[in-house]
């Protein structure tokens, strides 16, 4: 069975060079727009609240497009289509949950987090956990768990940026990493999340345009989805079976981790604080779901289309599945479309990196000091300094060998899911949840994920087909949360402040 634990395992192999004048020109144009937006945003960032949650003043459309942008990494453009090419429709179980996750997040988390922000001026996810359980310890532990996940995600995204920039400009992987992180760092440190949000808006629109155009091109080139399916069915019918070449357990496992786990992804959940007016949440799930569908059209169409084109001889066989998108773009599509998609991939990795840098900086300057009973006086200044440190550390880590970086990235999604979903998503909706239950659950998620992923990485242990460390850790974290909360249920009413209780009951 093909193993691919999370979308973080992206772009670990070199892309073919796309350094042609049109691609370079679009790439330069893309970076120029990013710089212009950053300069504009930097002039408007004056407080820590501006820096970390954009002063809670982002409008609905901007927030939605930005949220779509950070929800898909470069995996949706490169690794994902390659994964479909390799295993068939089973790879769709990673993205199918998008049909329910946005509205589920809105019902379970968005309203309560936005209202908690209103009542308490909260700016981070661990803030919400600390307020819910009246516990700096729970807040600190959640912050540590998130920081561990962010280290992995950042290193993986830095490497992905290097691969894409090297492919566009032909500057070499090392320089690609430093250029990508340098630009991201420049706008993260100067304009904070405000620069991030408006760059995300630009990047999200670029990704959606690239995705829709490629989708239409593939359908046209292949003679429609029916013709593409007929070609595949003639050579490899299993590819279009409901599980593709995965086992049913593996495909369902993807669906579970990427649906329930979405409630713990900080880059999306953190955005709930930023909406200017809580009542605008009304249209947020609908707009975000439609946006995600547009961005994910490329994922499906390229994976399935390239399979058919290789089978009928219109494309040469691929050296590796990750070459599916580059092979289509560089051999078949108009070069301007290829340029747009390559810039879209750079956009996807940069928007994800910016979001994680910002969240990481907030954890170091805000949550960890609170956990130790202290407050940083100049959160804005320290936020900028920590942003530089995190980005530099990620770029240095990304220079290491690909397998090490891939390992760091693999547990990111699972770690966020297993440590945050029970304590945050269930905890904000169940007054019987206790501080002890939350701390035990976060600790379980952290320890089980790290232990299982490390054991698997060092080949001490092999999971049965269809079972992943992320899934086991999330299930364990849920069960521990329920059990410990039940055992300590008498403490529950004492751990709930009146304003938090009101927010939970509305």
């Amino acid at each position, binding site marked *: 069975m093909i193993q691919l634990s999370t979308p973080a395992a992206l772009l670990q192999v070199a892309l073919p060079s796309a350094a042609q004048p049109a691609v370079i020109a679009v790439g330069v144009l893309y970076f120029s727009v990013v710089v212009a937006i950053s300069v504009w945003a930097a002039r408007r960032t004056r407080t820590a609240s501006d820096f970390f949650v954009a002063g809670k003043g982002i409008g609905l459309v901007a927030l939605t497009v930005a949220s779509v942008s950070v929800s898909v990494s470069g995996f949706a453009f490169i690794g994902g289509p390659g994964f479909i090419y390799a295993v068939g429709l089973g790879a769709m179980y990673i993205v199918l949950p998008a049909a329910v996750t946005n509205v589920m997040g809105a019902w379970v988390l968005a*309203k309560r987090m936005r209202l908690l922000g209103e009542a308490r001026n909260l700016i981070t996810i661990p803030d919400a956990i600390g307020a819910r359980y009246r516990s700096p310890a729970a807040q600190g532990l959640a912050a540590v768990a998130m920081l561990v996940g962010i280290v992995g995600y950042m290193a993986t995204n830095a490497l992905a940026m290097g691969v894409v920039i090297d492919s566009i400009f032909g500057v070499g992987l090392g320089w690609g990493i430093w250029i990508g992180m340098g630009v991201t760092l420049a706008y993260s440190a100067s304009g904070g999340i405000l620069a991030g949000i408006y760059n995300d808006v630009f990047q999200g629109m670029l990704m959606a345009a690239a995705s829709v155009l490629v989708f239409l091109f593939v359908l046209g080139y292949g003679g429609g989805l029916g013709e593409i399916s007929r070609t595949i069915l003639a050579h490899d019918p299993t590819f279009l079976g409901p599980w593709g070449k995965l086992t049913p357990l593996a495909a369902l496992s993807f669906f579970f981790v990427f649906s329930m786990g979405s409630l713990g992804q900080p880059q999306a959940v953190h955005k709930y604080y930023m909406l200017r007016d809580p009542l605008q949440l009304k249209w947020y799930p609908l707009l975000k779901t439609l946006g995600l569908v547009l961005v994910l059209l490329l994922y499906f169409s390229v994976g399935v289309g390239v399979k058919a084109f290789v089978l009928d001889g219109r494309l040469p066989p691929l050296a590796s599945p990750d070459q599916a998108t580059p092979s289509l773009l560089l051999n078949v599509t108009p070069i301007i479309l290829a340029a747009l998609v390559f810039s879209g991939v750079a956009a996807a990795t940069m928007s994800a990196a910016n979001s994680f840098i910002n969240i990481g900086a907030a954890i170091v300057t805000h949550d960890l000091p609170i956990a130790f009973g202290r407050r940083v006086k100049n959160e804005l200044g320290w936020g900028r300094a920590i942003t530089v440190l995190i980005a530099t550390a990620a770029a240095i880590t990304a220079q290491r060998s690909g397998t090490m970086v891939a390992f760091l990235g693999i547990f990111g999604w699972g770690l966020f899911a297993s440590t945050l979903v029970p304590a945050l998503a269930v905890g904000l909706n169940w007054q019987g949840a206790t501080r002890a239950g939350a701390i035990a659950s976060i600790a379980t998620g952290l320890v089980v994920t790290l232990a299982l992923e490390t054991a698997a990485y060092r080949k001490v242990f092999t999971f049965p087909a269809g079972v992943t460390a992320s899934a086991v850790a999330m299930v364990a974290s849920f069960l521990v949360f329920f059990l410990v909360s039940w055992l300590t249920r008498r403490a529950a009413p004492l751990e709930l402040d009146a304003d938090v209780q009101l927010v939970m009951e509305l």
Partner: protein
Amino acid sequence: MPEVNPSGTTTRGDTTRTAALLVLCLAILAIAIGYAAAFRQNGAPVWAPWLLALGIPISLGAIMTLGAARGRSGIGPLKLPFLFVVAVLAIGFCAALALPATESPLSKLWLGLPARAAVVIYGIGLLPIVVLPVVYALTFETQTLSAEDVERVRAMGRENRERTSLGSDVSDRELSE
């Protein structure tokens, strides 16, 4: 007569939440058993994926219910949409497991895909989109958040801030004395 909470809501919503929590717990347990069974020496038994095929939709439905339940009405008009989506997911997964593999060049295509693939892509992947976000928007004011709710929270926030600044004033005075 339902008991009234400090926030002015009644405990009917709590009954819905308790039921949702119990169902969520059982569904996660079913998923855990499905995973545990895969560790058997002979490999995953035939029934293991069925536990996930049922456990996943039920757990998602339960956590949505937990999040959407409020006050007197529980989840009120959301019952049917939630049931519909849980059923679509469960039927989709179970159909994919149960239907025989008949994909071939002669297969009848449904919107360009063979039957089982169409169930997965269009049923599981697209049908919930047509229902859930639209229902969320249509029931937003009555079921999720009204301007009055926001004002209540803002008022409590103002009280919090006043209390905090009053507290720090008092402690400053005590320190200077």
